[in-house]
């Protein structure tokens, strides 16, 4: 973690209209995230964590307050500029993976580069490297339907990394995975964080949140607590202690 401020949020507010009802999803959130932090955002449903993620990810702009990503004032940007920021500075990892079913692993990871205006040197080489770094070297030509849940999420992570974004935003990345696979994914995140990547993760599972350095608690559109985690759980260690599926089955018999 460095002193460089990556994300600065001041008094952020956002209200949604659902039918005739107005929902004040965020009521004035202040937040600062430095480079290299690994932050978890927790809260019950309706706390506003999805909205906060959408703001941070530049999928939407706030009604009031300020959001700076690397000193860029997001509230002043138009749709096209937001899209550019999403392309270059944000890497999304979703709970439901959100890969394009008709594309292969390679093509899925390649996708963000297609929308990048500037030409990327040695693009293909880089794609191969990222796919290898998440351990899917032999699955480059497979379509998502031919991959397991864990493998799909790895493809999503490689896709999120391909344009070397400033932040990785993960929305319940282990939600659709079993506990072992979930730990494997957390291991990847922790490795990325050790390499200097800033990662923000939304989860409702405390066990997962304890893998991070800081947990931010949201309730009713406001941050109620920020907790520093002195000794985050190490996914690698947990994996070593975790019995294999085969062992578990034979133990049950």
């Amino acid at each position, binding site marked *: 973690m460095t002193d460089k401020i990556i994300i600065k949020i001041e008094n952020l507010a956002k209200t949604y209209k659902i039918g005739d009802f107005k929902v004040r999803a965020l009521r004035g959130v202040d937040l600062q995230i430095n480079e290299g932090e690994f932050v978890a955002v927790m809260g019950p449903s309706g706390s506003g964590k999805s909205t906060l993620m959408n703001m941070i990810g530049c999928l939407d702009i706030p009604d009031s307050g300020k959001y700076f990503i690397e000193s860029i004032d997001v509230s002043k940007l138009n749709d096209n500029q937001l*899209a550019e920021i*999403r392309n270059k500075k944000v890497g999304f990892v979703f709970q439901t993976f959100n890969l394009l079913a008709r594309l292969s692993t390679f093509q899925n990871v390649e996708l963000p580069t297609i*929308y990048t205006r500037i030409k990327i040197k040695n693009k293909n080489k880089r794609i191969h490297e990222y796919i290898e770094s998440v351990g899917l070297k032999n699955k480059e030509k497979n379509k998502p339907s031919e991959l397991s849940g864990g493998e799909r999420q790895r493809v999503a992570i490689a896709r999120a990394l391909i344009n070397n974004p400033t932040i990785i935003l993960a929305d319940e990345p282990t939600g659709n995975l079993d506990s072992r696979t979930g730990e494997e994914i957390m291991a990847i995140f922790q490795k990325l964080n050790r390499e200097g990547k800033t990662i923000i993760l939304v989860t409702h599972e405390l066990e997962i949140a304890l893998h991070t350095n800081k947990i931010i608690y949201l309730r009713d559109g406001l941050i109620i607590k920020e907790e520093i985690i002195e000794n985050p759980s190490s996914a690698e260690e947990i994996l070593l202690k975790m019995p294999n599926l085969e062992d578990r089955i034979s133990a049950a018999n």
Partner: protein
Amino acid sequence: MRTFSENIKIAFQSLFLNKLRSVLTMLGIIIGVGAVVAVMSIGAGAQDSVIKSIQGIGSNLVIIMPGDSQRDMGPMNQFSSSGKESLKLQDIEAIQKYAKHIEGVMPLILSAAPVVYMNKGSNVSIYATSESAVSVYNFEIDTGKFFSKSDVGNSANVAVLGKTIREKLFGTDDPVGKSIKIMGKNFKVIGTIKSKGTNTFGQDQDNTIAIPITTAMNKLYGQNYLNLIMAKTGTEKEMAIASEEITRILKKQHGIKADEKNDFSIQSQTEILNTLSAVTNIFTIAISSIAAISLLVGGIGIMNIMLVSVTERTREIGIRKAIGAKNKDILTQFLTESVVLSLTGGLMGIVFAYIISILLNKYSPISTSISISSILLAISFSTFVGLFFGIYPAMSAAKLNPIEALRHE
């Protein structure tokens, strides 16, 4: 930025994903383009045969018809019988005597009649004309000879046979010297003429018999007027002068004053050609327009399917936008798909029309000719349909909110 060719590749992938759906969607365009191009090729073929057949008669022709030129149009007029009796044999003599810029002039009465030889019979077109027909009308003698000036003077019962009727009545034998019956009267065959082919109006020009005009007027029809006068000039330039000369001569013959309306009309071959050409053109455009309606329907089909496609792929659009696709990237992607759809349909329609026109050319009397311009027109129309009917679905795709789109099923 996604390149043009990448967009095309993605569009084709979408097309192939559901082949049946794509084909059904394209069907409207295929039929529309196919029909329009086929009709245009028939029209062009008709245009070509108009030109060919009139040039086949003989170039540099001036055609004089009885009656007011305002109402009449082309050689079709000769079949109407509303008292158009202003042209007489004496007119031919006068023109021959006084017109200086013509090479030859011939009278013509054209009708149909039954002809019999032994036990064989048929209906033929009878060209009642003078000996000048050889030069003016380009009748080329095959065997025997054409009738002479004296034959005309004597109202001789002589006949010259065209190829079709000759083969029909005599097979491979030479009919010269034989006797046939036309409208029950005996005629001696003195010659045969070479093939002239089928003219614009579907008439087999070889299913004809030429007889002296005087014989027809006096012995067969009992009429003293002509249907048509044709005069041939040396060069095209002389046609205007020749027309003027003939007009003056005929006015004098018929006793018409300078300011009175003529009881005849005079047209050059070019003018007739242009009129027929224009008529064919109008027919072609009219029928093509009707065929183009199926293009419209095809376009609506494309718009429909694209809208369905956008709805089906809402999630995908959300993902692309989240990853950095701009509104115009999504717009371009879907617009390319609809253009690829319509253009592919258009190309298939052109192939379809091509096959039809080859078949028509080979197995029917209708002649066709596909031109480059009609193909280009079809291609640009297909592209336009794809753009026009694809823009609305593409725009609704582009405007999708990424957050909502991602939540979609």
